[in-house]
């Protein structure tokens, strides 16, 4: 028992031990290369330990943490993304010519650790602990290039906003605790089953909680900070903000929502649908107006989280598999996109390679890099032959299976709008080159990372069967995923709809509002 517990926790233990080791090494001697390699080794060891933890099965570590297939899947995504960011950062930092660099890796590990804690958390305490660790690491990273005013500004902004949203979260947690007397998710679910949230404290608590999470996920209407932070942060860190922190918080939100069975509360569903629809539409519309790549991707990531929310709203086993697939595709694509921006950036200058003009004619100067960027943009736009296509189809399938008419309509309109700005970037890259500042020297490590991401993106877009099989297996092993799906016959003809099997009648009634 104890040994299986240790192997379950091993990835987390390694991840927690690495920053300590790195810190001691830095105290011993500052050496960029050594710090980076030890950090990478720690991440790789933790990734390898996931395999061991997978075979050990589900484990509950104290009432705070649950380590199951879901946790491990997202842990894999987060560690792999962090590793990619590390590899991309190495030459970026070298080119910055403004040391010391070693603390960067420490903060990187802290961010990953916070995200990992979020994934496994089963309790408000763990949730808050993970979130703060994640945010503190990110603040340091965002403001890391001290000579850049924008980075410092972004760091300060993120500090204030994350503080405010944490305050919202804490107050929400406190109100819910006041009402139910517990902070554990499963216990809350059971208590809510006995007496559904009816009084003002619980409602206010959930509203505050949702506001806090909305801020962290930069969902509309809590999205205003995102473009500034994305623009100000150094490119590899932007990728962390877009990928690691969003995936971790979304994973937590999904688990929390399902454990609580939020599907029985029509008001909660309505609010979430509204947020999803607004995020998809506003995210894409606002991206149209931007000329700065980082801002475009900030808005794009808002809309992409909106797409995954459609899977959350569907809430079936299919939807879980769809969300996992979508987030995997999102992680690979977004890391790749910011990786390419990183490779083209001159960290010594005042801003990264984020002006659209920088990319004019890139296809004829750096065909491989521009080709890779094109494929990644196609993936974000949900076009074949990329992972993004498979993922988008999967999410739409989940939505169709659950009759989510309005969110689906927003998804379709949103992704049609999205095409416009993705294609615009591609066209700029394909236009004839005009005079511009020289591109930075090629970075071998970063280029290799981007190539790996590109191969993954196309390979899993053309032959996704192994990935989908793995994800379906993971979802099937989860204890908290609803096994029945809403029965989707005759979607457009409610009068012939058969009774929804294996769902309580009241639950079916609550969900009916999304039907035609």
């Amino acid at each position, binding site marked *: 028992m104890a040994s299986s517990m240790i192997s379950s926790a091993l990835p987390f233990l390694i991840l927690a031990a690495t920053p300590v080791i790195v810190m001691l090494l830095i105290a011993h001697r500052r050496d960029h290369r050594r710090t980076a390699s030890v950090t990478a080794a720690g991440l790789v060891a933790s990734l390898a330990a996931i395999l061991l933890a997978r075979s050990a099965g589900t484990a509950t570590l104290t009432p705070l943490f649950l380590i199951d297939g879901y946790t491990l899947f997202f842990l894999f995504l987060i560690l792999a993304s962090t590793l990619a960011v590390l590899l991309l950062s190495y030459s970026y930092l070298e080119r910055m010519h403004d040391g010391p660099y070693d603390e960067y890796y420490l903060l990187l590990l802290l961010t990953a650790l916070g995200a990992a804690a979020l994934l496994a958390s089963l309790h408000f305490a763990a949730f808050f602990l993970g979130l703060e660790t994640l945010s503190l690491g990110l603040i340091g990273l965002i403001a890391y290039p001290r000579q850049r005013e924008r980075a410092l500004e972004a760091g300060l902004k993120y500090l204030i906003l994350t503080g405010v949203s944490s305050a919202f979260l804490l107050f929400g947690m406190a109100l819910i605790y006041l009402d139910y007397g517990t902070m554990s998710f499963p216990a809350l679910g059971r208590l809510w089953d006995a007496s559904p949230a009816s009084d003002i404290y619980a409602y206010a608590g959930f509203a505050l909680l949702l506001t806090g999470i909305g801020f962290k996920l930069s969902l509309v209407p809590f999205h205003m900070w995102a473009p500034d932070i994305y623009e100000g942060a150094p490119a590899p860190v932007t990728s962390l903000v877009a990928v690691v922190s969003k995936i971790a918080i979304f994973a937590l939100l999904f688990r929390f929502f399902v454990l609580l069975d939020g599907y029985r509360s029509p008001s909660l569903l309505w609010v979430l649908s509204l947020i999803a629809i607004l995020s998809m539409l506003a995210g894409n519309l606002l991206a149209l107006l931007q000329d700065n790549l980082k801002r475009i991707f900030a808005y794009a990531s808002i809309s992409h989280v909106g797409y995954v929310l459609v899977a959350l709203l569907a809430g079936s086993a299919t939807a879980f598999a769809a969300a996992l697939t979508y987030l995997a595709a999102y992680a690979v694509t977004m890391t790749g996109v910011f990786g390419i921006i990183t490779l083209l950036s001159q960290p010594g200058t005042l801003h990264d390679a984020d002006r659209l003009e920088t990319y004019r004619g890139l296809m004829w100067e750096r065909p491989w890099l521009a080709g890779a960027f094109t494929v990644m943009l196609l993936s974000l736009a949900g076009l074949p032959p990329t992972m993004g296509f498979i993922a988008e189809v999967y999410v739409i399938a989940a939505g*169709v299976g659950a009759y989510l008419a309005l969110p689906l309509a927003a998804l379709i309109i949103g992704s049609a709008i999205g095409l*416009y700005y993705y294609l615009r970037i591609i066209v700029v890259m394909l236009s004839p080159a005009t005079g511009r500042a020289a591109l930075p020297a090629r970075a071998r490590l970063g280029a290799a990372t981007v190539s790996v991401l590109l191969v993954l993106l196309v390979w899993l877009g053309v032959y996704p069967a192994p990935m989908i099989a793995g994800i379906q297996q993971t979802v099937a092993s989860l204890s908290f995923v609803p096994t029945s799906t809403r029965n*989707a016959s005759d*979607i457009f003809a409610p009068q012939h709809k058969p009774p929804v099997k294996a769902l309580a009648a009241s639950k079916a009634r609550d969900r009916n509002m999304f039907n035609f």
Partner: protein
Amino acid sequence: MMLLWLILIPFLGGILAWAFRGPHADAPRWVSIAALALDLPVLALACRAPSGAWLGRLNLPWIPQLGINFELGLDGLSLLLVLLTLLLGIVSVIISWTEITERTGFFHFNLMMSLTGTIAVFLALDLFLFFFAWEVMLVPMYFLIALWGHERRIYAAIKFFLFTQGSGLLMLVAILALAFVHQAKTGVFTFDYFALLGTPMAWSTEFWIMLGFFIAFAVKLAAVPFHSWLPDAHTEAPTAGSVILAGVLLKTGAYGLLRFAVPLFPHAATAFAPTAMALGVIAIIYGALLAFAQADFKRLVAYSSISHLGFVLLGIYAWNALALQGVVVQMLAHGISTGALFILAGALQERLHTRNFAQLGGLWASLPRLSSLGLFFAIASLGLPGLGNFIGEFLVLLGTWQRHPVFAVIGAFGTVTAAAYALLLVQRAFHGQPRKIEAPDLRARHIAVMAGLAAAIIWLGVSPQPVVDTAAPSLAALRASAVTLGPGAP
């Protein structure tokens, strides 16, 4: 396996074309022609395993977890359309020889990818694979228009993309809805065409899902309320792009209606037939009238395309043997004659740097070969007996008469208006006060291509029987799966 090679060869050809961009500017052209020519014998080989209406089938597992297979099938209808695709593909490589001189590697890569997607669309029998191929066609065509097009190319390319992609997503939702309905009825989640045929559905469900398919295909076919992308895209595209768009890509819409939208939803299609036929008739008249009013050579041809494809829509929803034969002949004839007119427009543009009738006229004396070919294909386009378009339009009207005489009568006026715009085209572009033009007439390369196209359209007009015979078994099979639409139905 031959069916797989049919798709793989142009795909690999496209990659090689890009890879060979370095040594010589013409290398990508030769690679593309070689790949397309190599595909022709493969196509012949693929026909050697007939069973029923199917000449060849292939089924490989792809994403079994989601009920998705890599399923291909070749029947007479697909065979003719793939043949048209390959031939027009070779034609468009040849006619771009002097027009496209920059970035030939990437140009031919896109051309070949677009053709690969189109061939896959004509062969796919798994609905997911069909949608995959449907999307694959788009992006390279977008690049062809946006990078090598004329003045307003970016606008046209984006409009084209948004129309087709938006409607494509609608089709995706319809495909998924169909798969879920099928799962609810049978417990099997699949995208297999044959399994989904005859899925029992409530009437309104069937109707809404059918509409999702219909809109996607109608946008591709440029049926009237959804046509506004076509004149822009065709006009702004480079010549090869216009030829592929008009000749092949539009046919994927017609093919989708024939293969999917009607047979999968026979009851809804029956009820919808009068509306669709009305749309077809409106397209015939409206396209012809607008063609008449154009001042731009390519725009005129583009609007004439809308008119010609109106006949296709009319014939598909008449759904009897005569009309469907007409549809097939019309698709081939339109591909050839419109393609040829776009090639001539491209040749004029290359020589005179204008497509505007105000600056054309009186070309016959200086460019006799180009002008006479222009006359020939304009006449083909107006449906002169003895040429392919006549057979197509005549059979469609004959078939429609048996179902809905009114539509046939109104549609027949389209042949009159066609005469008006086609002759106007000849008169304004080639006739008039003779002018001295400092430009060479068509070169041997173009002449050879045009002679081939002219021969094809004459052959189609004089002896359409082989084409009709090739398509007959598959058309019969399609009609059998949607038998309620046959003659006698309302």
